[in-house]
């Protein structure tokens, strides 16, 4: 199965993009891009305390392929977007939430690194390792 993970800045600038397998990447790009609008919508709708993890079920169901797109927003308005195959029905809500939590923790660790300038693309090897393991787990 395929999936993708994107971390996007508030200005909708991508911080981190990861897709498995990589040949579907363009499709993921499109999917994530459209889902960003939905995420923004939800953010503005909520108004207060967006700090809690949010979940976004887009229901982008193509006739041929199904994808579930989940979103998550940190308190600094950094958006995490995760795309998974709908065929991967084993994924439950809790698992998604825990994955986002792990991502958020790793992201915080990256922020702690003084050599990291916020806004840079994320090149951290530790982060990559963590994302890899997470995606392997899901697939």
């Amino acid at each position, binding site marked *: 199965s395929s999936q993708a993970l994107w971390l996007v800045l508030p200005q909708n600038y991508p911080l981190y993009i990861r897709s498995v397998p990589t040949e579907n990447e363009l499709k993921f790009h499109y999917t994530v891009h459209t889902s960003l609008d939905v995420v923004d919508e939800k953010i503005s709708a909520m108004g207060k305390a967006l700090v809690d993890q949010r979940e976004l079920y887009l229901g982008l169901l193509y006739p041929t392929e199904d994808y579930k797109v989940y979103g998550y927003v940190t308190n600094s308005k950094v958006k995490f977007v995760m795309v998974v195959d709908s065929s991967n029905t084993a994924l439950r809500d809790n698992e998604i939430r825990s994955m986002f939590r792990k991502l958020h923790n790793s992201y915080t*660790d990256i922020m702690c690194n003084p*050599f*990291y300038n916020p806004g840079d693309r994320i090149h951290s090897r530790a982060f990559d390792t963590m994302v890899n393991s997470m995606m392997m787990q899901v697939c």
Partner: protein
Amino acid sequence: MEQGPAGGSGSAAAAAAAAAGTGGLLLPLSETEQQRYSELFSRCCPPPEAAAGGSSVGELFRASQLPPDTLHQITEVCGAKRVGYFGPAQFYIALKLIAAAQSGFPVRIESIKNELPLPRFMALKNDTEVRYGTPAEFHGVKFQVPHATLEKNSYKRTDEGDKQEPKSPPMSPICSPPASPSTYQRIPLSYGYGKARSGLEQQHGAPYEVKHSTHQQDGPSSGNYGAKSTLTCSTPNRCLSVEQQESSSQYSDDPWRITEEQRDYYMNQFRSLQPDLNAFISGSVAKNFFTKSKLPIPELSHIWELSDVDCDGALTLAEFCAAFHLVVARKNGYQLPETLPETLLPEYLQAACLKPVCDCALFDSHSEPLPSSQPTRDFSRAEKSSAEEAPDNSALLQDGKKDDKQALKVSTTLKTIPKEFQHLTVKAAAQEPNAFRARPRSRSYSSTSIEDAMKKGEEPPTPPPRPQKSHSRASSLDLNKIFQQNTQAVRSGWLPPPPPALPPRPSASQTEQPSEVELHPQMNRPPSQAEENSSAKKEVVLAQPPSKPARRKLRTEAQGLETPELSPTINVTSSLPAAKPHLPVQKQSSKQKRAIQTAIRKNKEANAVLARLNSELQQQLKEVHKERIALETQLEQLRPVTVL
């Protein structure tokens, strides 16, 4: 003669082991290099001792036919100048540097990371052993002319060569593993060739000479040397990889293991950044510190990731040691691991007794504690916090004691880090003598203060210079700001901008000052005042911003009072290259206070200037605005007639 190398290696085993340990860690040495170096070292230094005698080393270096400046540079870079003696580490590094210089590389630490041919030395008269039966793979090394018959000629020529200017390209490969097994005698042979070669110039860039014994007969034909170092590159690779394995195995089995000296060094550095060893170093402070190592940011980022185990954005002592060790390892060419090695884990490091204040450890007879002191000062300069006083003082005291030990010193365990920083700081240290020499030369406040500052800045880390610089104003704060630009080009990346020794006044020779001061006031009264007012440096230099000649004189008198305080530092500075004397603690504090005060003053003045500028610009803006309004109204008045 295959026995040759075996014999050579056997005899040099002991030295080689030590050398390999250090050399391997610091920079990979091929087997041939190792043998060669250890032989040379044992030649220069009888086995019981651990340090090479200066004279024999000097002879050897001269025999390399490099220009004296280069040799000086090499001596400085390898750390011998700083530590005051040629231990195995310094010696090997020096040999590598000689090889690099003979290959045409600049004398820098980075050059010796590459594979290099063995250094060539002319006419080491007492050296006739068969040394390198190196495997044929190592071609390119100098001559192989083992014929005894030729030796005579070569010796003759050698003498001529000796008389030659050292500038002549290095020839005589003393230690060249001959490509052909038949040629194991070395050194003397080369001489002949070296000399004859007027075309030695070509040798400059070509340390390698392809030789075959058969070719020797051709005599000085430079044709033998046509081969270039490129030939040898392939072969050293193999040697190096083997060497690395050996070295890693020899060096306590783990390049990621921190030795006692390294740990002490790291702790000193930690102290310079953060006096309390149980506290953290914040991320930004650590970032500045590690950025000075000139590693690329992604690598530093990765190092941080590895070492900040608790991911809190701050480094504890153990984390800092790990990070520092990784930096040093990376600088020495090791690839960064994907995960933190076990020996660098904070728990491990803490378990391995990191003593918060290991004064006792510092006084161990470690061969390389000295380097740490200097780097400490380097970094302390960079960091600049007044809280550094205590660490500095302790470091200084330690340094002083270390210096005592150094005189005896046997550097048996040379570790990369100290050496690394030796190299880095040696430059600073090397510059210090220059600075000291330079200082007496330029005393005038006005025009040469900057030069002074630069020169003084070159005495980087040593605290003694600091007080001298500017009424003990040397502390980093202003200095960095002032001299950042100036000194960037001058110093290596590791040296923080040196404390700008403000004008000559605090300079070492107090006697000169009064005379200069008197002269200057008379000549430069008005200009000096203006200059002082205009130049922040001057103001910094002078405690009181309005610089009047009379005041200057008073200052010099005041300085005279300070002389007792400064004189120790002066003495220190004079003996700086060799030792770091102890400094009284109060000097540090008053220095730093004054530094802070001058910094505040400077900032205030800068603020005033900017405020003035701002108001002027505002005025201009208003006027322009008024003009514009006037023009617009005029336009309006003219227009209504038409517009309707």
